[in-house]
């Protein structure tokens, strides 16, 4: 089991939510104070480096035109971390390549980070959440098709070493591709893809890339992981799917006592509660299938977003499997229950800072997890396990 400290670099100093219609896309940047923003960047980088000191890996992501994640050019932050950190793996999850006009440029950025970090890059790719299409002016129709063409092209950019090649595809056109530098890691850095749908997971499995899913709880996560394994097997990759192909992202807060843990967990809920977005941004045409839009119009709730309404409370989020919070023992038991239910995963992506969770509390959460929970997880769930079993004993016996 490998754990990752994920900081979304949020800017929480906002007017009351009832004074603006959306925290994303349209919130005027007059609200953003660049000096406060600079202090936040300093602080968040410090926290990533503290996580590294504690033996936890580093993860970041990218969003645009939003206070929830002020990291619109994540490769820049990654480049800074490549120089500031020394040993942690560096996961960007990810590059929104359906919204990037030049996949070749993305391949170049990632290759640079791999060289800058001396081969510590974990390169993640995401289709992008729906509110990203307007900031990118990116057509929400056929995003999946663009995503996969871009990803295949990026891999080719990394693995071709014999001078220029051309690409004349459906969405992207290049006559002479020959990137410098090329990555250190061979044949290329590990590739991650996030998806919250079973169809997407099967395709990721067919490619053998690392599958990450965010806040999908118990049953949906199980179905996504099953779909991944099905895709893996049907592509002829063998029967056994290693544990380290699967990752789960959740809100995690560990405190040295129940009261402190509860207080930290409450602040982490900002992730869920601050995400005020109207339907015209959260569900642009073509982002979800027609049948799902029909279901939504008929009042079937929460089919677009896995964020259920129950998750507005710590208890509800823990019950839903989207948050693991409490004392070390409690968090270990919650994680074990989730791990066993979904059939196991080799990476825990820890959403460990949000909103007004202050530096000291963030660091406390990182340290308590790293020192009191992580060793037990690593012992119980070694990377040699095979995924898709009810318990570690079954997985080891496989």
């Amino acid at each position, binding site marked *: 089991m490998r754990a990752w400290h994920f900081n979304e670099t949020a800017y929480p100093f906002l007017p009351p939510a009832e004074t603006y219609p959306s925290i994303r*896309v*349209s919130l005027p940047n007059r609200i953003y104070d660049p000096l406060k923003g600079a202090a936040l960047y300093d602080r968040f980088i410090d926290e990533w480096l503290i996580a590294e000191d504690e033996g936890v890996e580093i993860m970041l992501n990218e969003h645009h035109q939003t206070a929830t994640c002020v990291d619109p050019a994540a490769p820049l932050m990654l480049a800074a971390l490549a120089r500031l950190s020394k040993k942690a793996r560096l996961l960007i999850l990810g590059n929104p390549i359906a919204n990037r006009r030049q996949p070749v440029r993305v391949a170049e950025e990632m290759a640079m980070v791999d060289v800058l970090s001396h081969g510590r890059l974990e390169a993640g790719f995401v289709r992008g959440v729906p509110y990203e299409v*307007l900031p990118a*002016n990116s*057509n*929400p*129709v*056929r995003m999946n*098709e663009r995503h996969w063409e871009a990803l295949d092209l990026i891999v080719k950019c990394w693995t071709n070493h014999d001078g220029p090649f051309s690409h004349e595809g*459906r969405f992207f056109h290049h006559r002479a591709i020959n990137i410098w530098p090329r990555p250190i890691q061979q044949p290329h850095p590990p590739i991650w893809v996030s998806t919250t749908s079973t169809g997407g997971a099967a395709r990721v499995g067919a490619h053998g890339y690392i599958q990450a899913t965010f806040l999908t709880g118990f049953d949906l996560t199980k179905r996504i992981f099953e779909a991944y394994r099905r895709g893996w097997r049907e592509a002829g990759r063998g029967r056994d799917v290693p544990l380290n192909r699967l990752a789960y992202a959740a809100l995690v807060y560990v405190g040295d006592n129940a009261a402190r843990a509860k207080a930290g967990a409450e602040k982490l809920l900002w992730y869920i509660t601050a995400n005020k977005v*109207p*339907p*015209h*941004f959260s569900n*642009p*045409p*073509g982002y979800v299938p*027609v*049948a799902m*839009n*029909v279901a939504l*119009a*008929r009042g079937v709730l929460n089919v677009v977003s896995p964020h259920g309404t129950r998750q507005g409370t710590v208890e509800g989020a823990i019950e839903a499997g989207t948050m693991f919070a409490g004392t070390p023992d409690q968090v270990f038991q919650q994680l074990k229950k989730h791990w066993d239910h979904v059939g196991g995963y080799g990476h825990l992506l820890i959403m460990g800072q949000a909103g007004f969770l202050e530096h000291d509390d963030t660091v406390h959460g990182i340290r308590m997890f790293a020192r009191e929970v992580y060793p037990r997880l690593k012992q119980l769930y070694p990377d040699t396990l095979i995924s898709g079993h009810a318990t570690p004993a079954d997985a080891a016996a496989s």
Partner: protein
Amino acid sequence: MPETKLRLADVELEMFEDGRGRPLLFLHGGSGFAGEQPFVPLLSKSRRLIAPSHPGFGSSSLPDWLDSVDDIAHLYLELLDKLALKDIDLVGCSIGSWIAAEMATKVPERIRRLVMVGPVGIKVGPADKLDIPDIFAMPQAEVQKLIFHDPVRMAPDPAKMSDEQLAAMFRARETLALLVWEPWMHNPKLKHRLHRAAMPTLLIRGESDGLASADYVNAYARLLPDARIRTIPAAGHVPHLEQPEAFASAALAFLGE
């Protein structure tokens, strides 16, 4: 039923055809076509009304290569060939009028008269202001106010629609986004070609149209060699739906000249 399927290139097109007389090719707007719409019998009473559902609308297929209004214009040139329509009258609404304008610049000699209702497809205003408001970046209730003079009476009510109608509505919205997303609601080349569309043209604008403004329609008319404008009161972007009689009589009178 007057609906049939027609194969054109690799597209399976849903076709509606009704009435007798001089053929009239009707090109629907962003919400699609339905034979039950009240303006339909008003047109087919005196004309042979031919109304395809554009690729990705109704039950027409959408091939993966197709992603622009111009693609549809080319497809409909093939439709003219297939149906042996030589001297055709063309009526288009909203993006249907954009398709019609593209066709008119390509084969002006094959189009006798042209009616464009709530036309879109050109960019005439400044770079820092959208000519056509962004209907995908505002609440649906706001969109309905721009489309209809009387949204309370006209706006579709999902609760009263069948699953099939709802699915068609969402599919139309998706295809519309595919076609008009970028550049937003226009083809930058079109205004440089409109001078070729010399056939008599009538631009119909609903007085309350919140999408195609009066200035925009005036600019469109100036780019066409022989165009005039007719404004329909108590109608928004879709006067053919909101004031079917006024629309049909204006269109038929012009086409009958």
